[in-house]
Each structure stands twice: as structure tokens, then as C-alpha cells.
């Protein structure tokens, strides 16, 4: 009896575990297939390069693509250097195990765990209300509200803070792949610490910085919650031309089209196509990051 039970379990346990793993693969496959089948027919060159028409019931998603592009561009210009410098300081300048390292690392971990909607609140409370309105008060004496309203600059800054942990973690990982001997040799030859970082460490971890930037961009392109009230617009007839303009965003466009638009069913095709475009975008970024990273790991071995 006991033996029989065991021989059954021998197949059941791995079988069940395998089923769980398989179900993850299956659901991902279904997700991608559904989006591909329903989205592909509506994607065309015109769809990608024209603006929404007739109250967003037809036309393309060009402004949303451009808005997303500028958002992630600004975000990475701000976030990537800060993240890289933090990682450099943590691993090159201070003792591992010192209080400074512990405190900053704790801060980074906490940042990574905060829900994205709280970042949105932060962006609204700090950037828009505090800094923006403060700038208006100083520059224009409260005569006009230029900066004290949601815009692309505040949204990018919010997103930069959100993606900071991503950059820090991957740059730190890359710094660890730079051999210690190289640094010691550089120092022994009389280079100062900063010269060593500039000439030895930074070139050695450039792939890591790139991975971090790509992952951050992929995350930033997909997140919607932080920009809900820091700059994303429902519909804009023109493209953003200055930092104080609002912008359209792919993810926000999907949300708006599928839940808030007057005739949701009529625009199903556009919704699927927009979702597919966003998915392909984040997808290609992720794959690029994986490829760059595997190159880096090969170098390590």
C-alpha cells in the first residue's frame, strides 16, 4: 500500500510542478497570440505616423509614440547619470559594510518597493505643486501658471526617480565584473582614484550602464500610474514643443481608449494595435538588455 502510494507520488509531484511551470508558459503564449492576432491587422505605417482623428475613433497613435519617446528620453538623461554615479560611489569610494553603504542601499531597496502610484502622488505633491508653483511664484509672481501644472518635465522626473533602482542595481552588477587587478595596476602606476574610475572602471562597465538604461527605458515606457496626474494628456492636437507641455503616452492611451472613451467597442482594433505596439516596444528593449547582459556575463567568465 505504502509503496503504491509512493510510486504514484513519484509522478504526481514532478507532474504538478511541471504543470505549474507549463501553465506560466501557456498563459504568456496565449497573451502574446491574442494580442498578435487581434492587433496586427490594424498596424500599418499610417497607423504609426498619423494622429488620432474624429474624436479618437480612427487615425493613428503618432503623438502617443512621440510623447512616450520624449518621456523616456528625458527620464534617462536625468536618471541614468544619477544612478551610475550612485553605483560608482557605493562600490568605488566607500567601504562595503559601512553605514553609508547600508543606508543608501536600504534607500534604494525601499525606492524599488514603493508602489508606482505613490510615485505619481509624489510627482504631483513635490514637482508640480511645490517646485512648479514655487517657480511660477518666483518667475511670474503668480500671474500665470506655467510650471505649476502637470507637464512632460515633471512626468520625466517622476519616472527618473522610479527607475533609479533599476539603473543602480545593474551598474553595480557591472562594476563587479571589472577585475580588481586592473584597478590596482592603474593606482600603482600613479593614477588618481578619479582617473582610475574614468579610464578603467567606466569603460569596463559601460555595458552595465547600457543594460541599466535599457531596462529603465523599458520600465518607463510601460508604466502609466506615475504619469496619470503628472503630465499625460487625454488628447492633444499638437506634439509637445516645450518642457511645460503635456504629452500623450502609449500606455495612458490604452487605458483611456479601453475604459474612458465613449464608444469602447468601436475602437477595439485601435486598442489592440496600440497594446501590441507598446508590448513590442518594451519587448525589444528587454531583449536588447538580455543580449547586452549575456555578453557582459561571458566577459566575466
Amino acid at each position, binding site marked *: 500500500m505504502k509503496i503504491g502510494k509512493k510510486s504514484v507520488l513519484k509522478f504526481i509531484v514532478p507532474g504538478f510542478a511541471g504543470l505549474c*511551470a507549463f501553465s506560466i508558459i501557456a498563459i504568456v503564449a496565449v497573451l502574446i497570440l491574442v494580442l498578435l492576432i487581434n492587433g496586427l491587422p490594424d498596424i500599418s505605417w499610417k497607423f504609426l505616423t498619423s494622429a488620432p482623428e474624429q474624436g479618437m475613433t480612427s487615425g493613428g497613435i503618432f503623438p502617443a509614440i512621440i510623447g512616450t519617446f520624449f518621456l523616456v528620453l528625458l527620464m534617462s538623461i536625468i536618471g541614468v547619470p544619477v544612478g551610475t554615479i550612485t553605483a560608482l*560611489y557605493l562600490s568605488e569610494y566607500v567601504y562595503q559594510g559601512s553605514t553609508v553603504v547600508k543606508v543608501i542601499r536600504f534607500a534604494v531597496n525601499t525606492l524599488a518597493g514603493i508602489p508606482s502610484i505613490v510615485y505619481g502622488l*509624489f510627482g504631483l505633491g513635490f514637482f508640480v505643486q511645490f517646485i512648479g508653483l514655487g517657480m511660477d511664484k518666483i518667475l511670474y509672481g503668480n500671474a500665470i501658471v506655467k510650471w505649476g501644472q502637470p507637464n512632460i518635465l515633471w512626468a520625466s522626473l517622476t519616472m527618473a526617480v522610479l527607475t533609479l533602482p533599476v539603473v543602480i542595481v545593474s551598474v553595480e552588477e557591472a562594476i563587479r565584473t571589472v577585475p580588481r587587478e586592473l584597478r590596482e595596476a592603474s593606482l600603482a602606476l600613479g593614477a588618481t582614484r578619479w582617473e582610475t574610475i574614468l579610464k578603467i572602471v567606466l569603460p569596463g562597465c559601460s555595458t552595465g550602464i547600457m543594460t541599466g538604461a535599457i531596462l529603465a527605458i523599458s520600465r518607463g515606457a510601460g508604466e502609466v500610474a506615475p504619469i496619470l496626474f503628472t503630465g499625460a494628456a487625454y488628447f492633444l492636437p499638437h506634439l509637445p514643443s516645450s518642457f511645460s507641455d503635456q504629452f500623450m503616452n502609449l500606455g495612458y492611451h490604452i487605458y483611456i481608449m479601453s475604459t474612458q472613451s465613449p464608444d469602447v467597442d468601436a475602437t477595439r482594433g485601435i486598442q489592440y494595435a496600440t497594446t501590441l505596439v507598446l508590448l513590442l516596444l518594451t519587448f525589444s528593449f528587454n531583449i536588447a538588455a538580455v543580449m547586452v547582459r549575456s555578453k557582459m556575463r561571458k566577459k566575466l567568465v
Partner: protein
Amino acid sequence: MRDELQLNTELVKDSRGIESPLSSNQIALPVKNRGDGNIIIEKKTFRPVEFIIERFLQIISFFSLACIILIFTFVFREAASIFFAKEDVMEESVEPSETYGEEALGEQIPVENIVMKEEVQKTSIIRSISGAKWVPVSRHPQFGILPLLLGSINVALLAILIAAPISIFASLYTTTFAPKPVKEIVKPVVEILAGFPSVVIGFFALIIIASLVQIIFGLQYRLNAFVGAIALSLAIIPVIFTISEDALNAVPRSYIEASLALGAQKWETALFVVLPSAIPGIFAAVLLGIGRAVGETMIVLMATGNAALATLNPFSPVRTMAATIGAEMAEVVFGDIHYSVLFFIGVVLFIISFLLNLTAETVVRKLVMRRYS
């Protein structure tokens, strides 16, 4: 020359023990031998450029710490007006009494009244927050966050009940049972899933999952907590899978070999040796999964129906805390009570996720240290 070099290294060692020379400030201690037997150690040359660069890097690297403090300060600041009397409102009501001059005496009673009204309003806000109804836009708005809290718990709990077993067993499969080619497929697929923007999962739930669930269970409402939970589980499966896989991989090889040597079968080893040894890591994975589930906005916003009902019924439409902020913040008047209450919900979310992360980290560290030390 040789003497000098030897002295040099000795001094370096003496001054700082046997740490790695890399992070020291005294890498190259210049030693001068005067020839009369006295050795003078020159102080490290002060390099202004190096100094400025180091300080600059230091300041920037404290940026993330500053962000945490700023996030807490500013989210809390906007929420704080619920608890503290609004000064500007009182100032406005005092001002007219000055302009009226002689009538100021007669004006004082209304001013007190206004202050009292403020007090009443303040206590009523706090009472209303702890209430059981969320009706923010009406003549008598009520801001009870209980339904929202229950909504968040409802969806997050369901999501974790779906996601945790699947991802834990899947990670057990890839670490112990799976042949290498299968492993090579599962891991990238999970990474792909992790890269899915939440709005894409939300859209999928809104259109496909909702219809399926409605047909299978014959439900009245298309969007409900269960649909949201299924979608949410897609977002947290990668989180739990990755961390619990790391934990399972960290189980010492010797445990497995000992178990196999004692005659245990592969499944027995996996279930009774590998899995229990990795419990702290798996626990942390589940905690972080809960944190993600509570904080996730777009998926629940799109898939749970957003009706603020105080219920734990899985098939009822619910409204979570995060979704409430996402849905209502854009339409609210700045500085309004509603605005402050939404920020207050943000503070609650911040604290919940902070505590979950903290517990996950400390629990793991403690348990792991006890186990392997």
C-alpha cells in the same frame, strides 16, 4: 631603495590593518628617508580636483536617500491637512473683521463659530475616514477607506492564492526536476512576463479574462475582484518565481546529496529537503508579491469594476486603494478634502509596502543567518 619600499608597505599595513588597499585613503604613503635614520612620512597630497569630485559623487549618491525622505514628506504633507486645522481658511475668515473696524466686536462671534465649525469638520473628516462608505463626490461626501482597504485585501489575497502555489511549484520544477532545455525555456518566459507593462495585462484582463470568467461562472458583473486577481497574479508570478528560485538554488548541494544518499527519492528530496530549506526566501518572495499586489494600480483599475463595496466576496466588483487614487486624483480640486484623503491613502500604501519590504528583508536575513551559520 629597497629599504624604503619595505618600510612603505609595512607602514601602510600598520596604519590600516589588513584591509584591501583599494578603498583606503592611504594607498601611496610617500616615505622620505633623510639619511639620518629618521623617516618622515609625508601626509597624503591634497588634490583639490579629486576632493571636489569625490564630494560631488557623494552628494549625488545620497540622492536616492533624499528621494525617500522627499517622497514621504511630500505625500504626507498633502495628506496632513486632514489632521491639522487649516490655517489659511481661518485667516480668510478673520480678515474681514479687520476691515469692518467698529463691527469687529460683533464679528468675533462668527469667527469663533467658524473655528468651531472647522473643528467639527476636522473631527468629522477623521470619523468619515474610519467610516464604511466611500462616496467622495456628493453633497455630503463620505471618505470611509474601509471599503477600499477591504477591496485591496480582497484582490491581493486572491491574487497571492493563485500566484504563490503556481510560481513556487514552477520554481521547484526548474530547480530540481526540469531537464536543462526546459529550464532554458521557462526562465526567459518568466522574464518576458516580468517585462509586460501592467497596462497591457490590464487590457488583456478587461477584454479576454473578464469574458471567460463571466461565461464560466455565469456572473452578473463582468468586472470583479476575481478577474482583477487573475490579472494581478500574472504580474506577481515573476516576482515570486524569481526570488523563490534564487532561494531554492541557494540550498546547499550537500543537503540534497545527503538526502539522496539516505535513499530518498528525487521528489521526496525536493518536497521534504529542498523546499523546507528555502522557506525563508520563499516567505520573502510571497511578502514582496503581496506588496506588489497591493500597490499595483493599472491592472486593478481596469479589471476590478471599481465599485467601492465593503465586501470580501471574490465575485463582487471592488475598488482598491491604489485604483481609487489613480481614478479620482485627476478630477479632484487641489487642496480639497477629497485631495487630502487621496494623499492619505497614498501614505497608507507607502507604509504598507515599506513594512512588507522591511519584514521580508529582516526575516530573510535572520532566518538565513540562523540556518547557515
